[in-house]
């Protein structure tokens, strides 16, 4: 009948491999071939440059509000590069780089943030879900996908993402618990950028690390330098291997920083200090990875420059395609809002579609007559 400490048997670790000065811990360094390394860098760069270009578009009224992703490339690419096409990728909304890596076209991304559902249609050939807006809700879908893999006996994993603030939602808890109870092959990756819009992590939770929340689910938790794409890769790969071997889910916390406002509508000066931002800019994920590639002889300065140009051209082409598409009849058709809700058309929606069709026709006629409202006369009827 004593009083005694209970031993915590869950493994909670910290991992960093490539530091901000591009020093590498060679004992921990993953063995990746040059093509893979180049591909990883390329998509980090594509993500970054797309994000920057999108900001310019937004500022000139060519794009809606969107959550910027600059700074989140290592968390996204380090993890997504550790899964197969046939695995599942279930993002939140800061995985721009990872979505591009998975095959989401630039025009889809742009269409999405310009208010077209067509941008939410996953590309063929991969198992991806689109952006998810109600925070943490996607984690349950990932848990369910993982449970389904077990039921079907498929050796795959589901890789999913959430923000530090999102871990306060009940859905986070339920998702990690379901995944753990059913030993579902799910990797939960936290984009810990230390803020939920304006709310710092210290006001969001009262424990030292997000990773330690894994203790509550009997799963391994690992906190990773989220600006270190190699560490993110290693942590994810281990988790993937364990999951595929039946070892269940893992919680990965990637510590990083949002180099931008929360969205294009936000003003971070209200809640973050310039010094803090400056400090974190110094830990930027692309610079150190580029250095690493150069040090390792994978890419030369010239290669890097060429890649910039390539990426730039790719983005330009994507924007152009999105602008053409958004002017296409299909994408401009408002009547399509009734077409995809149910697997079969309902009488009720058919009526509403007809109502809108007639109204649009009436408007068109009105416009032709140069009379904006063009209402039929009522007085006679009175």
């Amino acid at each position: 009948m004593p009083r005694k400490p209970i031993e915590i048997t869950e493994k909670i670790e910290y991992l960093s491999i490539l530091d901000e000065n591009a020093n590498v811990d060679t004992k921990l360094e993953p063995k990746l071939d040059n093509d893979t390394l180049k591909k990883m860098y390329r998509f980090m760069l594509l993500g970054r440059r797309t994000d920057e270009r999108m900001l310019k578009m937004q500022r000139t009224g060519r794009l809606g509000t969107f959550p910027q992703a600059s700074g989140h490339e290592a968390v996204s690419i380090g993890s997504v590069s550790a899964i197969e096409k046939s695995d599942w990728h279930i993002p939140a909304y800061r995985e721009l780089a990872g979505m591009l890596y998975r095959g989401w076209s630039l025009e889809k991304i742009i269409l999405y943030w310009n208010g077209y559902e067509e941008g939410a249609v996953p590309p063929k050939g991969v198992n991806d879900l689109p952006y998810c807006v109600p925070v943490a809700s996607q984690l349950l879908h990932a848990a369910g996908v993982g449970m389904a893999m077990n039921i079907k006996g498929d050796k795959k994993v589901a890789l999913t993402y959430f923000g530090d603030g999102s871990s306060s939602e009940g859905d986070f808890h339920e998702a990690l618990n379901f995944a753990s109870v059913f030993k579902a092959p799910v990797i939960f990756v936290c984009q810990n950028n230390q803020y939920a819009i304006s709310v710092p992590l210290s006001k969001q939770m009262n424990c030292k690390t997000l990773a330690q929340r894994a203790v509550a689910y009997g799963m391994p938790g690992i906190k990773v330098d989220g600006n270190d794409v190699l560490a993110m890769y290693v942590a994810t790969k281990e988790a993937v291997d364990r999951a595929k071997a039946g070892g269940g889910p893992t919680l990965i916390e990637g510590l990083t920083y949002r180099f931008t406002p929360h969205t294009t509508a936000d003003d971070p000066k209200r809640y973050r200090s310039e010094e803090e931002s400056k400090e974190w800019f110094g830990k930027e994920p692309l610079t150190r990875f580029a250095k690493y590639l150069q040090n390792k002889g994978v890419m030369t300065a010239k290669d890097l420059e060429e890649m910039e140009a390539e990426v730039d051209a790719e983005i330009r082409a994507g924007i152009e395609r999105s602008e053409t598409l958004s002017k296409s009849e299909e994408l401009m058709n408002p009547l399509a809002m009734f077409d995809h809700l149910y697997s079969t058309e309902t009488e009720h929606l058919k009526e509403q579609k007809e109502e809108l069709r007639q109204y649009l026709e009436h408007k068109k006629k009105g416009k032709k007559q140069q009379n904006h409202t063009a209402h039929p006369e009522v007085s006679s009827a009175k």
Partner: protein
Amino acid sequence: MAGTKEMNMAKAINLALHEALERDENVVVMGEDVGYDEGVFRITEGLVQKYGEKRIIDTPLAEAGIMGTAIGMAIYGLRPVCEIQFSDFANYAFNQMESHAARFRNRTRGQIKTPLVMRMPSGGGIRALEHHSESREATWAHVPGLKVVMPSGPRSARALLHSAIQDDDAVVFYEPKSLYRLFKEEVPDEIETFPIGKAQVVKEGKDLTVVAFGASFRVALDAIETLEEDQDVSIELIDLLSISPMDHATICKSVEKTGRLVVVHEGPRNLGIAAEIIARVNEHAFLSLEAPIKRVTGYDVPMPYFSKEQFFLPDADKVALACIETIKF
């Protein structure tokens, strides 16, 4: 009927689950206590023994978790049939259903679908606790993208459940729990489906139309039988069955004939299903209406604790009175 078996509604739902599990290996059943406990109402009797723990899943106690993981499973290709222990607790799953089950198909222009069923016992009449007797189908029916159905007996329960499981959309399946073991009915041996989105004219009449569903359908039936025995009236009775999409065409056609309508349901009146029925009749059959449409429904209060639940619920007398007033108007 040739080739039928008599059974109560609990048994009929259980039968449909057995059949669906047998026919389609993608069907899984999940929820709190649906395994060895066989459900608190024993609706999942015999399932885990036959189909095993992989397909008959006792989940942790978390309704958002159940529906949220079911969405993931459905996206993966399964057809989860989820039990929420009492419809009252589905509140917790409202976000997953509204934000995702109702939207994935639309959001992805038809590419991703979420074929799942959220089964749940609902309504009063069994002297249950607070939060065990509400009938809030209107909450779900107001969500574009969900389908909502409610059977009124063994046969419609079994047929609608098959329809719901086979449907490619998310279906909220209300089970009026007071009917589980109230009466038996002939259920065909062959699997039968009822089209979701269609009401049934159960009995023709000419003086008045009554629309009801779920347990209230039985109440309406009782009322009408007594009324027609006692008095010289002829009442048409419609079993709504599908709450969303709603078959206003069938209702309006009937009202065009009778000119009068009474709607009966257990849920609160304010923004309840009857309100929408009235609005649609107003839109489609206004000129046929000879009297105001009466609502015999739950009141706009939480279901009182069970010592007084019978006063909250529609009963045959309330329905009969409303019918008479409407005919006399």
